[in-house]
C-alpha cells in the first residue's frame, strides 16, 4: 500500500471539553501534539486509531477513508494500519518479547512469524532479549519492544503517545536519538503526543499546541516560540533548543561550542553532541557594545529577527545564528529600541543553561 498523508477533522465531546481538531500530516513528516494534560492530545491519537468514535468527523490515510460520519463509514480499529505506541507500552505480560512482536504478524505465514519478529528485535539491538518476558526487561528495553511491535505490520501511520516520558533521564537521551531515526526511516505520517515542548522541538517537524480540546497554534518550534499566538502558547513553548558540541572546561564547568558559532558555559552535562535549552524569560538583552558587568557567563551576539507582543510580554526572535527567543517586558523593548534587523547581545547565566545529550 503506498503510504499517503494522514488527514483528520473530528469533533466530539470528551466529558466537559469539546474536542475540535483538524490536522494534516504528510508522509515522512512528524507532527507533535503538545499541551498540558487534559488538552485532548491522547484522544486525538485514539480517534485516529479507531479506539475512540467521534460524533462527527472525517479521517483519511492515503487513499483509505477510515472515518466519515457524514456517510456512515467507520473502519474498525483492527482494520486500520496504525502503529500505536502506548504511554506505558501495553506489552502483553504473558508473552515473550518476540511473541509480542509476532502478535502483529498474524497476516504473515505462520513459519515466517518468529524469524521476522526476531529480526525486527535484532534491528533494535534486542536480539538477545527476544525470549525475555516484559517483566524482566528494563524500561528502555520495553519501549523498544513496544516500538518494534508497533512497526511490525509496516503501518500506514505511526502514533506515539508520550514515547519518552516513562524513561529516566539517562535512557531518554539514547531513546530520543533512536526514535528520531525510526521516525525518519518509517516514511509515514507520524503523530507524536507530548507534554514536553523541548521533546516536541527535538523530534518533530511541526508542533500543534493544544488546549481544552482545540489546536491553539501550529507551526515549527521556533515559530511558536518566536511568535506565540497567545499567552498560553507563550507559556507552553518555553524552552528553546540549540545544538552543539560539549567539552570539559576548567573548574568542572562544561563548555559548549554551538553549531554555527558561539560558545556557552554550563554547570553540568557530559562531553559530546548535546542539545542546549534555555527558557526565553531567562535571557536578557542589551545593546551591542554595552558590556554587562553581572554574573551571567553566557553572552551571544545576536540579530533581532522578530518582535511579537503578547499582552505585557514581548517575544523577541533572535538568530545566533541558531534561533533563540528572549522574553522581555514591553517597556524594556521600547527602551532598547529593538526592531527586526537590529543587533543585540543576549545574555543568560551558566546555571540557567541546560545541557542534554543528543
Amino acid at each position, binding site marked *: 500500500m503506498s503510504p499517503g498523508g494522514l488527514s483528520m477533522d473530528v469533533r466530539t465531546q470528551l466529558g466537559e471539553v469539546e474536542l475540535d481538531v483538524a490536522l494534516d500530516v504528510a508522509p515522512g513528516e512528524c507532527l507533535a501534539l503538545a499541551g498540558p494534560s487534559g488538552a485532548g492530545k491522547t484522544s486525538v491519537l*485514539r480517534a485516529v*486509531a*479507531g*479506539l475512540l468514535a467521534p460524533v462527527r468527523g472525517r479521517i483519511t490515510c492515503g487513499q483509505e477513508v477510515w472515518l466519515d460520519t457524514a456517510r456512515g463509514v467507520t473502519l*474498525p*480499529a*483492527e*482494520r*486500520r*494500519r*496504525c*502503529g*500505536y505506541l*502506548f*504511554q*506505558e*507500552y*501495553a*506489552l*502483553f*505480560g*504473558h*508473552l515473550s518479547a518476540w511473541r509480542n512482536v509476532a*502478535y*502483529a504478524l*498474524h*497476516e504473515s505465514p505462520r513459519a515466517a512469524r518468529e524469524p521476522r519478529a526476531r529480526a525486527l528485535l535484532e534491528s533494535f539491538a534486542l536480539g538477545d532479549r527476544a525470549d525475555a*518476558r*516484559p*517483566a524482566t526487561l528494563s524500561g528502555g528495553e*520495553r519501549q523498544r519492544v513496544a516500538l518494534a*511491535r*508497533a512497526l*511490525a*505490520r509496516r503501518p500506514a501511520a505511526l502514533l506515539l503517545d508520550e514515547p519518552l516520558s516513562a524513561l529516566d533521564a539517562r535512557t531518554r537521551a539514547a531513546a530520543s536519538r533512536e526514535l528520531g531515526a525510526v521516525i525518519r526511516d518509517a516514511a509515514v505520517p507520524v503523530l507524536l503526543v507530548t507534554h514536553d515542548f523541548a521533546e516536541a522541538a527535538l523530534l518533530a517537524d511541526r508542533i500543534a499546541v493544544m488546549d481544552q480540546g482545540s489546536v491553539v497554534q501550529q507551526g515549527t518550534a521556533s515559530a511558536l516560540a518566536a511568535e506565540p499566538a497567545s499567552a498560553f502558547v507563550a507559556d507552553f513553548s518555553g524552552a528553546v533548543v540549540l545544538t552543539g558540541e560539549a567539552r570539559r572546561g576548567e573548574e568542572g564547568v562544561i563548555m559548549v561550542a554551538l553549531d554555527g558559532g558561539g560558545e556557552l558555559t554550563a554547570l553540568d552535562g557530559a562531553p559530546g553532541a548535546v542539545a542546549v535549552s534555555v527558557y526565553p524569560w531567562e535571557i536578557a538583552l542589551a545593546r551591542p557594545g554595552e558590556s554587562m558587568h553581572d554574573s551571567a557567563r553566557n553572552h551571544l551576539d545576536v540579530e533581532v529577527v522578530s518582535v511579537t507582543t503578547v499582552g505585557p510580554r514581548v517575544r523577541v526572535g533572535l538568530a545566533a545564528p541558531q534561533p533563540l527567543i528572549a522574553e522581555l517586558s514591553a517597556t524594556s523593548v521600547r527602551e532598547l529600541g529593538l526592531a527586526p534587523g537590529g543587533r543585540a547581545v543576549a545574555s543568560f547565566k551558566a546555571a540557567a543553561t541546560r545541557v542534554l545529550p543528543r
Partner: protein
Amino acid sequence: MRTAAGGWFAVLLTVALAAALTFLTLPIVAIFAQQPPGELISALGEEGALDALWLSLRTTAAALVLILLVGTPAAYGIALRRFRGRALLITLVELPLVLPPAVAGIALLAAVGPATLLGRAAQDAGLQLTLATAGVVVALTFVAAPFYLRQAIASFEAIDPTLLDASRTLGAAPARTFWRVAIPTALPGLVAGTALALGRALGEFGATLMFAGSFQGVTQTVPLAIYDRFATDFTAALALSAVLVAVSAAILLSVKLVRGPDAVAR
C-alpha cells in the same frame, strides 16, 4: 512481621492463631484419624461408594464445562461494557451465591420442574431432569456458576484496558483479543474462580436432593452418599468424606501453584 508487638499483644495473636488453626483443622484431621486407613480404603471399594465418586466426577465436570463455556464470554461482556442496569444484572447473577441450597432446590423445581412449562417441554424433547443425572448437572451448574462468574467478572475488569486497545491496534478483532489477550491476562483469576465453582459443585447437597433425588449411580453424588450412609455405616461416610477432603485440598493446592509463579507485568 517486625512490628513493635511485644508483651500481651503478641501472646494474644499467638493464642488467636492457635485457636483458629485448631478449630479449622481438627474436624478435617478427625475424618482421617477416627478409623484405620485400611478400613477407609476398603469402605471405598464398596460398589455404592465408587458409583458415587464416579457420578460426582462426571456431573461436576459437566457442570464446569457448561459454566466455563457460557460463563466466560458472559463475564467478559459484562466486564467490558457499561450499560444501564449493569449493577442490577451483576447482583442477579450473584444471587444464587447467597441462596441456601434448599431454596436453590425449590427455585429449580419452580423454574424447570415437571410441573412447569419448561420442564414439560424438556421432557417432551426427551431430556429428563428430575430424578435423572441431567438434573444433577442442572443443580450443580445453578449453585456453582455464580462463584465462577463473580470471579471472572472481577478478573476481566482488572485487565488494563490499554492491553485490549493495543491488541486491536495490532490488527486483532475483538474475538481474537478476547482469546489471545484477555483470557491469558485474566487467567489466574479465572482459575481461582473455577476452583471455587468446582469446590461448590462437589459439595452440593440440598439442591441436588430436592431437584434430582438420591439414587445410586444416577443422582446419588458423594455428599448424598455420605448422608445416606452416616446413620448406618459411619465408616463408609468417613471414607467418602476423606476422599472429598483430599480432592478439595488438591484443588486448592493447584490453584495456589498456578497463581504463584505468575507475573503479569508490562
